[in-house]
């Protein structure tokens, strides 16, 4: 996978660590873009859920990163990249209810250990690469059918 001649990046934006005030903005932009491209409401909903969770994860847990969407033949890929700190135990991170979020973040209604589960539930394919001290890249693919 990745960039090739059939792949078209439709959005690629930086996400700042801790910037709760911008949370959801990239997801909203992508949603508007997909609507203009004639994507069905059902697909837009799936993509919005995945994108929002990835966007908030970068804001809450990372040291900053970016969020991109690529249209590929038969699917859309949402790619979240961050610059650390990396996920210590990826299997554990996908366990429902497991979270490393701080108390203040939890009070805002985040950090319930549901985000990655949501992504997994709504994506048709998911690839997670994470290295401590380096960063995490998550590619979530949604089939266009």
């Amino acid at each position, binding site marked *: 996978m990745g960039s090739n001649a059939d792949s078209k990046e439709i959005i690629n934006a930086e996400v700042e660590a801790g910037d709760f*005030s911008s949370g959801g*903005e990239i997801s*909203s932009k992508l*949603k508007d873009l997909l609507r203009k491209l004639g994507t069905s409401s059902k697909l837009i909903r799936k993509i*919005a859920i995945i994108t*929002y969770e990835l966007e*908030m994860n970068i804001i809450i847990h990372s040291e900053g990163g970016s969020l991109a969407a690529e249209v590929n033949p038969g699917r859309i890929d949402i790619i979240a990249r961050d610059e650390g700190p990396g996920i210590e135990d990826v299997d554990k991170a996908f366990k429902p209810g497991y979270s490393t979020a701080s108390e203040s973040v939890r009070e*805002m*209604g985040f950090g319930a250990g549901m985000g990655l589960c949501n992504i997994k539930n709504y994506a048709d394919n998911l690839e997670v690469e994470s290295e401590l001290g380096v960063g995490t890249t998550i590619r979530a693919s949604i089939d266009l059918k």
Partner: protein
Amino acid sequence: MKIKKVASELELERVVAGDEAAEVTGVHVGDLLSNVMSRAQAGDLWITIQGHQNVAAIALLTEVAGVVVAEGLDIDDDTIVKAEEKGINLYQSQLSSYQLAGQLYDLGIK
């Protein structure tokens, strides 16, 4: 039922008026935002005790008909500004989420 009528029946205090002709087709009660994101449906009236600005982002993404902040809890100024920018119906009520949900059920929104 139109959200304007729902708001009047439940005596909700209007904080921001968006499209008050929006139809309320269901209700979602929730404060865990990932859960709301995946479960709230377009056209729902979302009842929550969260008043911070990410509520506006979620309301926009889920396309709920409007948001009610229950228990008279504070709504952040940033939330109000965002709701105004995006045209989101935002209300406040002194009632609990449970009481509001009960009244909505009685109104026939099931």
